[in-house]
């Protein structure tokens, strides 16, 4: 038997048909949908007079376009209100379970899926959202798709995709204090570049990866797309098992007699071949920050913005345009640079461990007066847990308010926009020009680095606050 990677095993076992010289027809176990990338797909079904093939394998939420305050009131913006209503109508019409605004389990699609036990090892998972790679943390082949492909999956529970090449990224060693999973993935992307993994599906391995909690693994897999990868996964293990055992809706599914037998197969064979392998040392990773306008333009928070040494003129033009947009120059240090906004949230860092980390650092301290903070839980479950654990009280004491769940400032489709010219330290996943609002300047970072900036009002090394 040919040695296979975990990715190969999951992909190959889901191929319904291979097309000569063409893509594979891949069966999809779980289809997540949300209000922004689904309406045109449902219109397509309607135009063809066909129904959703497997509504029971489909799960919907409203997350991108909803407000994060006063969610009990009607959405003010007409187009947004209409879009959310369209999702409700479509889910009702086609029999799809909707965890919409107001539902006790509503939240960001890539946060609620795992919470509800809908993401399970060995699955193929798609969603009309590029951060679908998040679910790879459970040992799944999960990737983002466009609206036409959403329509394809709704109609046939299958998608046509060319099988990507296989990359393994191994991170061995250990992490310094103050260095989180977010810093690890930002470091990897800074080394690989925003396009370096295009055409590949990544498996993350190594002692650092193995040491991470499920939420931390989700942070890692979430940002796979930012280096161009199709997706990223981590083989399931004891940590995955313990997490799933604790999911309320899975009670009884995972017995106490240990890891399910089929998980023995859910790992790469020892002599499996990857098309490309990269290795990194955890000990060398520092708290990270981005200085440019793509996630690959990142450096240590106490680092110096590099000079471009690329020979090609487009590369140089883009690099300089990027720095110019940010108001930075090569050779500049960012430590001490004033900040205006801090955003904690998103499918990257909007879970309870992220809120705990932020809260722990600001505890007993005060928000800097020049900072406007948006602290957004990834879901109602996270919000409720934060309240239960007393995090909201500590945050309030320090001058922070916990909002209601949604994608919020990550892409600023709703009112949570960073104003033009303002600097925002953000725990989200993209720092493209205007991503968080036209003219806004995003600096990506971990919840700890965001907390440090929120206290001092400027870019600060979080290790300064850790004993």
């Amino acid at each position, binding site marked *: 038997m040919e040695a296979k990677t975990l990715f190969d095993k999951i992909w190959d*076992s889901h191929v*319904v048909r291979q*097309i000569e010289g*063409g*893509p594979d*027809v891949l*069966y999809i176990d779980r289809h997540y949908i949300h209000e*922004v*990338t689904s*309406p*045109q797909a449902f*219109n397509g079904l309607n135009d*063809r007079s*066909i129904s959703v093939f497997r509504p029971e394998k489909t799960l919907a939420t409203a997350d991108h*376009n909803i407000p994060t305050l006063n969610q009990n009131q009607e959405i003010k913006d007409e*187009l*947004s209100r*209409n*879009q959310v209503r*369209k999702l409700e109508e479509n889910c009702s019409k086609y029999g799809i379970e909707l965890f919409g605004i107001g539902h006790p389990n509503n939240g960001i699609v890539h946060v609620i899926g795992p919470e509800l036990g809908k993401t399970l090892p060995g699955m193929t998972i798609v969603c*009309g*959202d*590029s951060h679908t790679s998040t679910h790879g943390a459970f040992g799944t082949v999960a990737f*983002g*798709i*466009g*609206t*036409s*492909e959403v*329509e*394809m999956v709704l109609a*046939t*529970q*299958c998608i*046509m*995709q*060319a099988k*990507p090449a296989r990359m393994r990224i191994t991170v061995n060693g250990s992490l310094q204090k103050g260095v989180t999973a977010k810093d690890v993935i930002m470091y990897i992307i800074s080394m690989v570049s*925003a*396009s370096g993994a*295009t055409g590949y599906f990544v498996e993350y391995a190594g002692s650092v990866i193995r040491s991470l909690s499920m939420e931390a693994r989700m942070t890692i897999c979430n940002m796979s797309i930012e280096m*161009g990868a199709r997706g990223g996964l981590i083989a399931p293990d004891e940590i995955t098992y313990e997490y799933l055992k604790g999911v309320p809706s899975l009670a009884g599914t995972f017995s106490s007699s240990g890891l399910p037998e089929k998980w023995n197969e859910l790992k790469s064979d020892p002599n499996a071949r990857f098309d490309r392998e990269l290795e990194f040392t955890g000990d060398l990773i520092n708290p990270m920050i981005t200085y440019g306008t*793509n996630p*690959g333009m990142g450096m240590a928070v106490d680092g110096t913005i590099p000079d471009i040494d690329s020979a090609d*003129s*487009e590369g140089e*033009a*883009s690099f300089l*345009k990027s720095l110019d947009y940010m108001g930075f120059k090569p050779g500049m240090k960012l430590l001490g640079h004033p900040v205006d906004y801090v955003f904690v949230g998103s499918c990257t860092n909007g879970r309870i461990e992220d809120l705990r980390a932020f809260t722990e650092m600001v505890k007993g301290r005060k928000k800097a007066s020049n900072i406007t903070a948006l602290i957004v839980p990834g879901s109602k479950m996270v919000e409720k847990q934060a309240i239960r654990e007393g995090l909201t009280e500590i945050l309030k004491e320090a001058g922070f308010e916990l909002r209601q769940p949604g994608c919020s400032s990550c*892409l*600023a*489709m709703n009112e949570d926009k960073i104003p*033009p010219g303002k600097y925002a330290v953000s725990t989200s996943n*993209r720092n*493209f*020009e*205007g*991503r968080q609002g*036209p*003219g806004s300047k995003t600096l990506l970072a971990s919840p700890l680095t965001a907390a440090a900036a929120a206290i001092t009002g400027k870019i600060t090394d979080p290790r300064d606050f850790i004993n």
Partner: protein
Amino acid sequence: MSKTKFDILRSTCVPLPYENVDTDQIIPARFLSATSREGFGENLFRDWRFSKSGAVNNDFILNNPEYSGSILVAGKNFGCGSSREHAVWAVFDYGFRAVVSSFFADIFKNNALNNGLLPVVIPEKDLVTLLSRITKDPEMLVSIDLHQQLLMAPAAGLSVWFEINPYKKECLLKGLDDIDYLLGIQNHIVDYEITTGK
């Protein structure tokens, strides 16, 4: 899904000499609230074409009347970032029918192929030559022949073969739709479900 066909295109080009042009630039998030596929062209590169006050940004190449055409030529890693297919709809609705680069982000490439917008991948050195020539000579005509998988710019001495998946090529040439294909093999999908106990 679209049944738009593509076979041969002959046009002048618009150069966009930047790398890593992401889909947030192509179509900012605030324009994604629409529930149909129409009208995205007017917001293509919105924040590059217009200033915050709505004034036309004359420095941006799409606002330079010297450059026009249905072929966009862009730096590498075009279409990176968000999976929003709206980016492809915006490019197509604006009037482009092909995008030429040395490298495309995966999801954008798939979305483009599913909408009859042809992503043409040529070697970096040829891209540099092409960008340089069309910038200097906006009237220069470029032909893209999907049958032969050739990009030709005779005035620049360029005749470059480009790769495209054979299945996707046939779909574009014939205006075929993936969903029609999948609906046609539905019994195979059901067989798969039964065999695997899904």
